[in-house]
């Protein structure tokens, strides 16, 4: 767990998330390219579940705190990203800001996940 010095302020850019927000392909674009009509990406339900369980038990990220920060980030850093992609970015942003995990840890985990999901 990082110490207070390592924690970032809410409005500060997090390069990893900023890059995903700018370069990541959003669900609406993918739907158009592949002719899919589902209004939501398949990961929306698991994202909602993550938000719920973080609010449960140890209350790692209370719902009101997360939603207030999502509102703030949605009108600022991630204003050009559609929903639910910006909800996901805001969640990761809030968790890094709160010190629940670090940006470099997330980056390493994303590399592992990408390798796993694209392995043949």
């Amino acid at each position, binding site marked *: 767990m990082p110490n207070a010095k390592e924690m970032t302020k809410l409005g500060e850019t997090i390069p990893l998330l900023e890059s995903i927000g700018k370069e*990541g392909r959003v669900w609406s674009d993918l739907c158009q390219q592949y002719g899919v009509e589902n209004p939501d*990406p*398949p990961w929306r339900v698991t994202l909602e579940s993550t938000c719920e369980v973080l609010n449960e038990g140890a209350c790692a990220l209370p719902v009101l705190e997360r939603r207030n920060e999502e509102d703030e980030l949605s009108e600022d850093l991630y204003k050009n990203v559609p*929903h*639910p992609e910006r909800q996901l970015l805001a969640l990761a942003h809030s968790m890094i800001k709160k010190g629940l995990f670090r940006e470099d840890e997330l980056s390493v985990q994303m590399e592992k996940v990408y390798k796993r999901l694209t392995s043949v």
Partner: protein
Amino acid sequence: MSKSDKHNHDAAPMVDEISDFEVLEVAVRELCIEKGLFTQQDHNEWTEYMHTLGPLPAGRLVAKAWLDPDYKQLCIDDPVKASLEVGIDWINSMPSKFGTPSDYCNPRILVDTPTLKHVVVCTLCSCYPRPILGQSPEWYRTPNYRRRMVRWPRQVLSEFGLQLPEDVEIRVADSNQKTRYVVMPVRPDGTEGWTEDQLTEIVTRDCLIGVALPRADRKADDKRPIHKAVHPYGH
């Protein structure tokens, strides 16, 4: 049907690409588990529960109430009990069971009349009666809807295509952690003699939030426009 006939059709289109957002969602979830913030089993329980949610139970509740005055009264007096009749248990069905902000165990049914229209908002965040109405639409979560609906409900409703006469009073209900609202609109003309199933089909999600009125010829919610505030409230 033979085994070969069963598979003799084109597969539905699918997104054949792993996006950064998909990877991010998995990575965040796995880091949470690694850090001990929750377990895979906790997450699975919520995901399974989320998959059961949708607007159909609330639509059926309204349809039943239109057909049965006693049930309508039950909806007003004891919405938790009335919800049980459409398969929704507000107290026990969700994984958390009791005692957290996500329990939403105080539902309220707001009954419209020809001269009174209710509409639901959550000015604080995006509280929504998910057990009986499913996930909230994107526009419901936007600060613009939340800020403007409480100030200029008639104008915002008109942007949804709902033009109400001046003599119709509009009441905006503001949701919170425990109290969640569902609107019971007035049964529309042209539905005389309809069955409960037929009526359920026209009670769409937007009708249940209060931004649309049921119509005999409309069974689905269209994508709604999002308008920016002219003078946004700074916070």
